[in-house]
């Protein structure tokens, strides 16, 4: 059997911003559930309260193990949420600037024609948890590229829908209300986007575990990624 080769996969900026983002997203999801628990219904449009038509109600709210703090405390939940929002914002700006200026996005996220043509095959392989080996593993596959582009788009929208719920920001930038269809629509979208982030994280973690957690997590810490040589024959 051929020896594994290692190569430099993730730049220091990507690794640093990745782990800061992990902390921010975990804290903001859990403090976000705390904030939701203070009013457990969602509406579309400009306004929405008890007597108005809601599209979702969760009378039980989110359980204590999913909220920060674990007891019901809107004030503390908000304090956590807004403090980590600043870290999330600055970290995200560093990542976006780096990705754009260094060519990381253009070089690593842009699907090639061959990848796009083979998307069905790649999807079938992924569903069987069969991941690329050898030279192919040096680059993100087409599904990874779409997932990463997706999350890079979703996270700024998460910030924008969050800001639209602020009465102060609405006075400064009323166009945000027009963009999202009103404050209660922004709150609903914020909730839906939160679940899309949870879905991304779940798929991402399953993929990491299935593709070899030591190598995958290690590469996001040290930057070094090991490639298994392609198997000559397959039974």
């Amino acid at each position, binding site marked *: 059997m051929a020896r594994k080769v290692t190569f430099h996969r993730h730049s220091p900026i990507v690794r640093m911003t990745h782990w800061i983002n992990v902390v921010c997203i*975990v*804290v903001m999801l*859990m403090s976000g559930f705390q*904030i*939701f628990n*203070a*009013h457990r*219904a969602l*509406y579309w449009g*400009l*306004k*929405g*309260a*008890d*007597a*108005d038509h809601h599209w979702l109600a969760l009378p039980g709210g989110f359980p204590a*193990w*999913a909220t*920060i*703090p*674990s*007891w019901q*405390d*809107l*004030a*503390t939940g*908000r*304090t*956590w949420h*807004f*403090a980590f*929002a*600043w870290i999330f914002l600055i970290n995200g700006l560093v990542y976006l600037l780096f990705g754009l200026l260094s060519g990381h996005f253009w070089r690593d996220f842009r699907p090639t024609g061959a990848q796009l043509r083979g998307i069905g095959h790649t999807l079938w392989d992924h569903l*069987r*948890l069969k991941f690329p080996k050898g030279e192919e593993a040096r680059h993100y596959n087409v599904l990874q590229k779409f997932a990463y582009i997706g999350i890079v788009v979703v996270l700024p929208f998460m910030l924008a829908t969050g800001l639209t*719920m*602020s*009465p*102060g*920001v*609405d*006075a*400064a*930038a*009323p166009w945000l*209300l027009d963009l999202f269809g009103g*404050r*209660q629509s922004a*709150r609903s979208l914020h909730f839906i986007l939160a679940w899309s982030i949870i879905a991304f994280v779940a798929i991402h*973690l*399953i993929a990491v*575990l*299935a593709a070899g957690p030591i190598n995958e997590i290690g590469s996001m810490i040290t930057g070094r990624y090991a490639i298994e040589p392609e198997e000559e024959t397959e039974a």
Partner: protein
Amino acid sequence: MSELIRLTRRTALLGAAGVSGLVLTGCDQLSRSSSFQRVLDTAQRLDMGAQRLLLGADQLAPQYTQADLSPWFKPNGSFTGTTDDYKRMLDDNFASYRLTVGGLVRHPLSLSLDELKALPARSQITRHDCVEGWSAIGGWTGVQLGLLLKSAGLLPQARYVVFHCADNLGGGPGGMYYETIDLTDAVHPQTILAYAMNGQPLPVPHGAPLRLRLERQLGYKMAKYVMGVEAVASYAHLGSGRGGFWEDRGYQWYAGI
């Protein structure tokens, strides 16, 4: 392969439970720590600084139309004033009500409801955002706070305006509702003391006879049952010193977010 999937799922579930447990234990400890709360509180100064930078002094909150009015506007917090004075005023339909404007002013004022209504009025249809997450749209008519402060003549030491209220939301001593805002918000054109809601006299559950409208901040800043307006240099001597009923209970003083 199926073994791998089973292993993966079990690892994932164990991992999620483990991470959640660790995060919660850690965050609960930190939530109880007053020094960590102070660190998080510094972010609130950033919130206010950033908003003041973006907003400028006079930028208006969005205004809506009759068609947007909430069919039913949810009252929240106190549903009536609780002091003996208030109950007497309720009996005479607020004929004996007087709004006092005092503190660091040159000419303290005492105004009846009719005198307030005789002053130039401002009407606005705005969205009320509760810190809990819901919103309601209502129409408000009242006197600009800036106009009253100008008539009273603010002294140069004045930095904040206190609203003294007639409702005891906390129950017992220390439970009286109060709020403070700074002068930037106090003289904002949409900052009014409203005596009418949707064209009717302000209903008791909404703060009759007079409530604050502070349209660029959350609902808990908008004191109801306002009996007195006081200009002060600092709010440290009031309540627990954080500048309001809910602020004393952990909520942010600047509620623009």
